[in-house]
């Protein structure tokens, strides 16, 4: 009798059963975290259930009983993240979403990748390719906004959600650097936790692959948050050639749509940046009609209230800009970036 009962009980409790989330409340909270979320479902308290938002564990998870968990949300970048529960090596169903609302929280850093485009056909049969290398002195750091790459996730994978699926950087000194597929327009904002960002090394190059026997491509700087020009600071790019052998392209990036005064030599223009579609796409403007002649010219970029002014100025969105100088004949590219 006892053996039968025990056998029945064993049948009723499948070994290795994954947790199941049935409902949760509330459905949203601020990006600064701290929201108590009550999760209903089926859990195994003995396995120490852990609530995870996308890729980020809850700040805390409290087991009320086998059907109820209470989690406190962590800081998280804005957007809709998958809410799921992990018990050991098993994860729950992945069809629940929690919305983080608000600004980028202070614990995350915004990083600009200025050129991050798929291959581009250029003049004279050229093809420009962007290569981004990632490496870590630690390992496992998460970068939000970079597609893991079609080689990692072929067409059968679910549609990629950048909020849920950060790329994890390798810390293996013997491994090839991670080189994800570029998806910028042309730039891309990516986000990392600040305590992880300092361990990650990046390198960005653009090269004309039809001429790769001639050069190793051009390095484009990765722009960390403290390198963005904020609070109305002027960007000065000096020594831009007027030589008609070269074509210059000024690229301007910001976090928000705004208008700027761009002075090229003695000519001042008002330039409006086109808005980005989401937090990963920078507001952007491009200027290509530079004067030609001899010598060099300076470009300065100012917020409309960038001149000395005794009155308090409103906060200005951060801005960055650079000029690419391309030889019309050889398609060799060089850059002029802010050096301050």
């Amino acid at each position: 009798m006892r053996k039968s009962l025990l056998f029945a009980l064993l049948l009723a409790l499948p070994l290795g059963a994954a947790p199941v989330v049935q409902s949760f409340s509330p459905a949203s909270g601020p990006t600064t975290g701290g929201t108590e979320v009550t999760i209903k479902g089926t859990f195994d308290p003995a396995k120490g259930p852990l609530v995870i938002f996308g890729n980020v564990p809850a700040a805390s998870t409290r087991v009320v009983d086998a059907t109820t968990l209470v989690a406190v949300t962590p800081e998280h970048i804005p957007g809709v993240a998958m809410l799921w529960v992990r018990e050991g090596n098993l994860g729950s169903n992945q069809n629940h979403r929690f919305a983080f609302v608000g600004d980028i929280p202070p614990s995350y850093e915004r990083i600009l990748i200025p050129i991050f485009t798929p291959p581009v056909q250029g003049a004279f049969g050229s093809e420009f390719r962007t290569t981004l290398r990632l490496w870590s002195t630690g390992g496992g750091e998460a970068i939000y906004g970079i597609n893991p790459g079609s080689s990692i996730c072929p067409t059968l994978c679910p549609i990629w959600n950048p909020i849920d699926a950060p790329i994890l950087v390798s810390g293996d000194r013997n491994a090839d650097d991670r080189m994800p597929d570029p998806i910028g327009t042309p730039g891309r904002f990516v986000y990392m936790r600040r305590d992880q960002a300092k361990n990650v090394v990046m390198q960005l190059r653009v090269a004309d692959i039809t001429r790769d026997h001639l050069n190793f491509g051009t390095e484009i700087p990765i722009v960390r948050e403290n390198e963005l020009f904020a609070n109305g600071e002027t960007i000065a790019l000096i020594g831009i050639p007027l030589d008609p052998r070269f074509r210059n392209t000024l690229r301007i990036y910001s976090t928000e749509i705004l208008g700027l005064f761009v002075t090229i030599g003695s000519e001042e223009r008002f330039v409006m940046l086109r808005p980005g579609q989401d937090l990963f796409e920078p507001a952007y403007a491009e200027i290509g009609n530079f004067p030609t002649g001899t010598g060099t010219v300076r470009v300065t970029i100012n917020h409309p209230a960038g001149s000395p002014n005794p009155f308090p100025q409103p906060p200005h969105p951060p801005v960055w800009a650079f000029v690419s100088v391309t030889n019309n004949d050889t398609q060799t590219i060089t850059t002029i970036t802010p050096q301050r």
Partner: protein
Amino acid sequence: MHRSVATLAFAILSSTAVLASPKITSVTPNHGSILGGTTVIIKGTGFSDTCIICSPPFADPQVYFGDDQAASVDFIDDTTIRAVTPQHLPGTVDMRVLQLDGSNPNFDILENAFTFEDDTYDAFEPVLFPIYMRPVQGAFGSEFRTTARVYNQGFTQLPIIGIDRTCTLIDPPISPTVPIPLEPRGLEMELPTGCSNTVARLFFVPIGRDKELAASIRVWENTRQAQSHGVEIPVVRRSDLSATVSLLGVPIDPRFRNTLRIYGLNHSTEWVNVLIDGELHQLPLVPSGDLFAPSMITFTDFPLPHELPAGKKTVTVTIDALQGVNGTQSPTFSPIWAFISVTNNETQEITTITPN
């Protein structure tokens, strides 16, 4: 009549009697901070606040500490002047008092009169130009030239120290210790790289003001008709230095030659570890002894393509300032900066791999 002329002549001669030249006998105190602001008492004879070219005809004497003018001067009497020191790089300087009272000579110099003390970086912000060379003959008949420009994007005059013009025709030569004022939002200044005797150069601006200085360094190869506008070399601020530098995607390819350059602001020899694809090199970073040149070491001993695993074409280079010799932990270390220049052996086109 003759007596009247003689009387007049005597009166004129009396009124143009030879004035005593200034003579410095002491400066107290004779040392102070590089931050300036030290009040010194200059004792001597023949001091005067008469100025024969001024209206009204008075002006305090001019006092110089080395080539830098005092922050303020007060004439007390013909034996005493009070002056306040300016900001100045560390070292012992002569003091000069100059006055416009018509005396001849109208100045005096007291050698080794005042010593500016403390660490340079307490009052001045270093700005590193990693490449700042006169034209250099390279491999395969190439000639590499460096152009360096600076621009004051601030709203007030910005003094920059370290511009060496001693090879130019300026007479007398202007010492690099003399601050050169950059006018706010004025013209760019092209720096005289032709006077350089080192690979790199340190310039200094007052502490807290380095962001007002926009700069540009370009290196290009001169003999191939400038196929590109040269390569941009980053200008390095003190905040860009770190304990570890990692450089990714360094090509190991017979078409290219790589040069790793490591820089520091250390005052004594320190060791750095350079790790290339698992192979460790320990290199000494030796101070240059020149206030305007960083400590620096150049490394070119990269692996050959056949020494890498099959299919591997690039390496990661990590430079670590934390370790001492034989891997021991250095109790203190100075942060470093480093980059690699990659030069095509055929075209001499240069590109860079810098810390990001």
